[in-house]
């Protein structure tokens, strides 16, 4: 198998966009890589960590994106090329540091890879991180192909060094998490001469601010000049197109396909921009001057659209009057990710062209034959997931307590407790650690008549990322809530990356595991620990903690993620349903196991009208045996 480190220059390999970014960094001689995992960005640093030894680089999972940005900046300050990667929400976390780093400037090349998730396929929002580059006066590159993901990353390090400031590379899920064949280039080794040398007392600070601010703007003007001749911007189409499509990122592919599908190549030109902030004004202006109508195709915010209009506003004499189509005109949807169909539709409506598609008869027949069976497949907790068990007990404890208690949620697999497999227990979801912050607030509303018990849930990785300050806040301010830490010993949602509680680093080295229980105890709160598979014991502990209205208390529900367990050990039980004991619908349990407990390993056999275990899906955790009132689910020890 070809690794991203050992692939030979000149060969073609099938790389994920994130692997291409990682390879580009290696080709640039990156020496330092850091990130907090987050879909769709995780494989940038994940891949670099895998090859850290053979690539002779340092890679780490940082506790959060701000720290990741800081450690990477330190490497840059010391003369080592560094890359930091994060999802769009992570850029928010890192932005406090970023908005001071931009004034400070950098030394060795520093690249921030921001991977956005249009349609929020694995996110709580679909924010566009590009305005951060504009806001921070940093150069912005957007790869439109897999090859560009690699080549732009490599070039971004040079650009960063040319202006002594960080450079932002922005991708979307359909580049980061898609795969394409790319040609590999030469690698240069990382610098081995790291040293921190300040030439003035304020060298590595934003001071004096107005002076550094002025410098920062001058750097950006230099970037604009460099972008004028960038090979990442190109035009395909007729000399004077009737309509100019201006696009970037994965939308470049969709635009090409739309023009082809509508056979509109002689009428439409495509201006594909790879350097989207600052805009190469002269280059863009030249193309705008050759048309009268412009369609902007981009994800997710009308960022390019707004910047183009701003540019035209300042150069109307050169470009002439233009009609813009895009998100503002309603031709491109204002939210969600784009695809070739949506772009073809938009282009067709501007040009008044119809796409010749599949016959309406086929579409109708397909709808008739499949419609009643293709209802949505809801996502939920895996078979054997400890979260299902934790939420089962939490649901029961809140019900037994009877005071209208509720749960504030957080970011991780357990966010799915918004849905049926977590019994709709989670009621709020915002940012990392926010569930605990909200609980702090709810827990201090007693003065205004608030009497409901509050439970905040967060996972182990989220606890380290952003929950600790909120927990401290609650303790300090006498808030009244229970923090339930769902410790499954993994950053499960993003691909099982280790974190400070695991005892392993990103590169597999042993490191002291931070003990969540000890840490909470040291803060002076009551801490209990439970095994979520012990439903009765967990419910009892929860109930006791709910009733203990004495400030903040913590329950750690500790059980390894089912998917991790499946890789490490054999199943604990062979589970089956005793057909003699399961009385089906005559039992009176109203199908508690399949209808309410909802583990995908439990199915209803419509022929025998009894519950059944699907041996392909069951993970053998044995928890369902405890919920069957007839004792019909049998655990046989393996």
């Amino acid at each position: 198998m070809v690794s991203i480190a050992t692939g030979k220059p000149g060969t073609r390999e099938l790389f994920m966009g994130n692997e291409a970014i990682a390879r580009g960094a290696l080709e640039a001689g990156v020496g330092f890589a850091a990130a907090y995992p987050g879909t769709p960005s995780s494989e940038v640093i994940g891949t670099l960590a895998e090859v850290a030894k053979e690539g002779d680089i340092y890679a780490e999972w940082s506790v959060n994106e701000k720290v990741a940005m800081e450690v990477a900046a330190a490497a840059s300050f010391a003369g080592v090329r560094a890359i930091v990667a994060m999802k769009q929400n992570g850029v928010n976390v890192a932005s406090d540091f970023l908005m001071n780093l931009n004034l400070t400037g950098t030394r060795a090349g520093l690249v921030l890879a921001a991977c956005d998730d249009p349609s929020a396929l694995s996110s709580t929002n679909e924010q566009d991180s590009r305005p951060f580059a504009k806001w921070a006066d940093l150069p912005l590159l957007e790869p439109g192909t897999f090859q560009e993901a690699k080549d732009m990353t490599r070039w971004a390090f040079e650009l960063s060094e040319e202006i002594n400031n960080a450079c932002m590379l922005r991708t979307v899920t359909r580049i980061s998490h898609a795969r394409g064949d790319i040609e590999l280039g030469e690698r240069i080794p990382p610098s081995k001469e790291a040293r921190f040398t300040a030439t003035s007392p304020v060298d590595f600070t934003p001071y004096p601010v107005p002076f550094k601010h002025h410098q920062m703007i001058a750097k950006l003007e230099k970037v604009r000049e460099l972008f004028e001749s960038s090979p990442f911007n190109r035009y395909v189409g007729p000399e004077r197109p009737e309509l100019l499509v201006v696009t970037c990122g994965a939308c470049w592919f969709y635009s090409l396909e739309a023009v082809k599908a509508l056979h509109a190549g002689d009428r439409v030109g495509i201006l594909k921009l790879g350097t989207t902030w600052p805009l190469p004004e002269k280059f863009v202006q030249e193309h705008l001057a050759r048309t009268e109508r412009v369609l902007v195709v981009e994800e997710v915010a009308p960022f390019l659209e707004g910047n183009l209009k701003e540019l035209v506003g300042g150069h109307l004499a050169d470009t002439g009057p233009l009609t813009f189509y895009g998100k503002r005109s309603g031709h491109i949807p204002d939210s969600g990710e784009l695809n070739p169909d949506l772009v073809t539709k938009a282009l067709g409506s501007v040009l008044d062209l119809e796409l010749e598609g599949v016959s309406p008869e086929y579409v109708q027949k397909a709808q008739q034959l499949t419609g009643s069976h293709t209802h949505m497949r809801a996502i939920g907790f895996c078979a054997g997931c400890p979260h299902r068990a934790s939420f089962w007990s939490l649901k029961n404890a809140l019900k037994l307590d009877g005071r209208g208690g509720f749960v504030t949620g957080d970011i991780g697999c357990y966010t799915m407790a918004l849905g049926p497999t977590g019994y709709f227990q989670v009621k709020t979801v915002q940012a990392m650690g926010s569930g605990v912050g909200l609980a702090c607030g709810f827990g201090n509303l007693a003065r205004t008549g608030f009497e409901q018990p509050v439970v905040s849930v967060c996972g182990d990785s989220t606890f380290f990322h952003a929950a600790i300050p909120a927990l401290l806040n609650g303790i300090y301010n006498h808030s009244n809530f229970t923090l339930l830490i769902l410790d499954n010993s993994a950053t499960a949602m993003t691909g099982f990356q280790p974190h400070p509680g695991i005892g392993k680093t990103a590169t597999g080295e042993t490191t002291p595991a931070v003990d969540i229980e000890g840490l909470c105890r040291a803060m002076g709160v009551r801490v209990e620990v439970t095994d979520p598979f012990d439903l009765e014991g967990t419910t009892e502990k929860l109930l006791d903690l709910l009733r203990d209205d004495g400030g903040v208390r913590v329950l750690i529900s500790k059980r390894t993620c089912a998917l991790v367990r499946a890789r490490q050990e054999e199943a604990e039980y062979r589970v089956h349903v005793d057909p003699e004991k399961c009385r089906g619908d005559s039992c009176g349990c109203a199908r508690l196991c399949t209808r309410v407990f909802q583990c995908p390993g439990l199915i209803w056999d419509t022929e025998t009208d009894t519950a059944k275990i699907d041996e392909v899906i069951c993970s053998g955790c044995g928890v369902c045996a405890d919920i069957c009132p007839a004792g019909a689910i049998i655990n046989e020890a393996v």
Partner: protein
Amino acid sequence: MTQKDPLNVIVTGVGGQGNVLISQLIGKALVKQGHHVTIGETYGASQRGGAVMSHLRISRQEQYGPLIPEGQADVILGLEPVETMRVLAQYGHPEVIVIANSRPVYTMAVTTGAAEYPGTQEVTRTLEELSSAAWVINATEIALEMGASILTNIIMVGALVGSRALPLGPEGLEAALRDSMPSDKLEVNLTAARRGLEEARARVAS
């Protein structure tokens, strides 16, 4: 046989069935043979029991985008019956070729009794009516006979290669498996792929 260009293939199933592995195996093997390949797939939340799809676009001429337009799949490989139906309705056309595993993974709506799962006959009839050729293969049952349901996807990829719908022969698939499987898992995966090839051979002959 002249190959359609681009050739659009969708591999579909439920999170955890091994979609990504299949698309990578085929993709890597085809890139090695000089094709341009693009793969778009769903990840993350969709892994947790949700519907998943990998879009493969294979071309001799250029690199295509990671998403196949609606109604333009040439081949659909389904690891799960209802998911195959779902993808077929959105991406199919009268000339599409469909190869589907027969074993259901019930949706929550079916498990809770809110919806019914179609019977094997209905699935087969639907797939046949909406395609130029449809094979339903008992891949999970074969995998269970071999001792591990996890081999289902490899049996299915064997059947896909055996159908000759891809510009990839059995040797290419074997080489890809040798390239990507850990040595202790290689033999059983090669056997699974051959079982899939046999299933295809029996159908091509008939």
